[in-house]
């Protein structure tokens, strides 16, 4: 059974400049123990999906569709029921590691908080758990590091602490929103190793959000590509990187330094004024007349979902 299934998710933001359509008709599921990578440009709606799953979006967001977790629709749960799921069942590591820790408490204090609040552990016992957790996350001196304040940590360490906090309660699903953003290559590798380590420790499903294609390739079993609020291609990671089908996916891979370094002409559409029909058609080298008239559906073909007229 799939622990998480998102069906027809649509998120609009009401703003004074009009309705921003951040996410549209997004459907996917996360299998038990797998890693699903969601890749796409900045601003294409990746983080919005992450926040929508845990209902952490601001008040002006209108979310429609269904998000099933253990046969319950998260969008219909009460705030109280949902807080039982947040952190315990589904955990979210948000962006900006150095700003995501409370500056006035030590790392240890923040690591034990979920244990004390959600599992009624005794403070001393929880501290031991926290130290063990840091040790498992390959911190060198966990006894010393639990007493540090966030400003004493580097970006990479903060990120690892955050990941530690998120998995302290052994959730079923970890949503990692750009876990390697703003880190240099070596630290990036550390974080990726960390995530793989965590996955091995428990039967955790990882929903990895990233704009870094190499991260997705290295860590995930399946990859979904987003463009302007829609999933345009989704399938097995290895197959996807070998033969991308959607013109955007192809262009995206060709823009990588190792694969030709070809920029995609044009720029992403504004979310207030999205193109009619296929959202990629103004930039697409294979466009036909039908592309600007009708939006293609996400069609399954040979183990791959593609949203393009070329494949339907």
């Amino acid at each position, binding site marked *: 059974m799939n622990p998480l299934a998102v069906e027809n998710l649509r998120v609009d933001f009401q703003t004074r400049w009009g309705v921003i359509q951040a996410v549209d008709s997004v459907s996917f599921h996360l299998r038990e123990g797998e890693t699903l990578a969601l890749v796409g440009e900045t601003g294409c709606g990746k983080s919005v999906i992450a926040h929508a799953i*845990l209902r*952490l979006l601001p*008040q002006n967001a209108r979310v429609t569709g269904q998000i099933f977790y253990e046969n319950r629709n998260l969008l219909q749960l009460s705030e109280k029921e*949902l*807080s*039982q*799921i*947040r*952190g*315990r069942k589904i*955990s*979210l*590591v*948000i*962006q*900006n590691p150095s*700003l*995501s*820790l*409370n*500056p*006035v*408490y030590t790392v240890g204090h923040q690591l034990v*908080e*979920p244990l004390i*609040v*959600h599992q009624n552990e005794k403070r001393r016992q929880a501290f031991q758990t926290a130290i063990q957790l840091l040790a498992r996350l390959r911190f060198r001196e966990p006894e010393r590091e639990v007493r540090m304040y966030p*400003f004493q940590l580097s970006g990479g360490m903060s990120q690892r602490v*955050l990941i530690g*906090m*998120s998995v302290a309660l052994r959730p079923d699903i970890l949503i990692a929103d750009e876990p390697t953003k703003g880190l240099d290559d070596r630290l990036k590798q550390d974080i990726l190793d960390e995530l793989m380590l965590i996955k091995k420790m428990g039967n955790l499903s990882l929903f990895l959000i990233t704009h870094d294609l190499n991260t997705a390739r290295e860590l995930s079993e399946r990859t979904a590509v987003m463009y302007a609020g829609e999933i345009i291609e989704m399938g097995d990671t290895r197959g996807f990187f070998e033969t991308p089908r959607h013109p955007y996916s192809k262009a995206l891979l060709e823009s990588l330094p190792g694969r030709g370094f070809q920029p995609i002409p044009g720029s992403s559409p504004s979310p207030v004024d999205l193109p009619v029909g296929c959202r990629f058609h103004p930039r697409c080298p294979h466009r036909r007349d039908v592309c600007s008239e009708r939006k293609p559906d996400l069609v399954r073909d040979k183990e791959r979902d593609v949203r393009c007229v070329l494949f339907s």
Partner: protein
Amino acid sequence: MKQPQNKHQSSFTVENRNWTRIGLILFSLVVLTALGADILAPHDPWQRFEPYQSPSRDHLLGTNDIGNDVFSELIHGTRVSLIVGFGTALLATFLGLIIGLVSGYYRGIADEMLMGLTDIFLMVPRIPLIIILAAFLKPSFWMITLALGLLWWTSTARVVRSKTLQIREMSFVQSSKGLGFRDAHIIFTDVLPNIIQVVIPKFMITVATAMISEASLSFLGLGDPTLKSWGMMINFAFVKGGFINQMWWWYLPPGICIAGIVLTTVLLGFGYEQKEEIGLRGI
């Protein structure tokens, strides 16, 4: 370019730390005086000696119209000032914190309504309102504390709200939400500790204003007549001819005491305010 700027900054903080230290020393003296008033005062402030005496060895600051020892009255007056000041500030800060946190954290309707309420309370002329209250109710020291506390929370609420609005958008609050903590938990462990440095100076300033207000009300004759407060002393000196007869020992010391205690609390708050700015830069 950078060198002189640093120099200026460091000398400024050192100077400032000294001010805080002076404030702390003076404040401890005030608290000790209030606590040990019964031991420190040479006489019972209600005991009657010969009236209108000028300062002498037996009565350091002379006696008043009914023969009470002014110096003993002065020492006992510290208590009233401190209790009114801190009582008011505690009540006002508590109200301001709750209102500010709730409206800043939840926003929406709650925010609109609470800030509307704050605007209404801000418009109410406070001292005249208390004068009217004092005129209708029996003027008592608890009534004054309560009335001042119920009227003085507005600016604290606004400061707390704006700071809360800032903190609630920070990643660690979002992250706590993602970990499934209750709102109350987030408010008290994530938001409150990060705004406490703005609340403390605000608290001290509320203490100072409450002390001045108590003195002003007492001077206007609306204070608690059964208590020895500095404002009451000046009031009696004024009414019973102390000013006209130039009995400086009667009206000058309480005035100096009021100014001194207010200065002390402001100094304390001032030190904290500077610290807070350093904290902001640090974050």
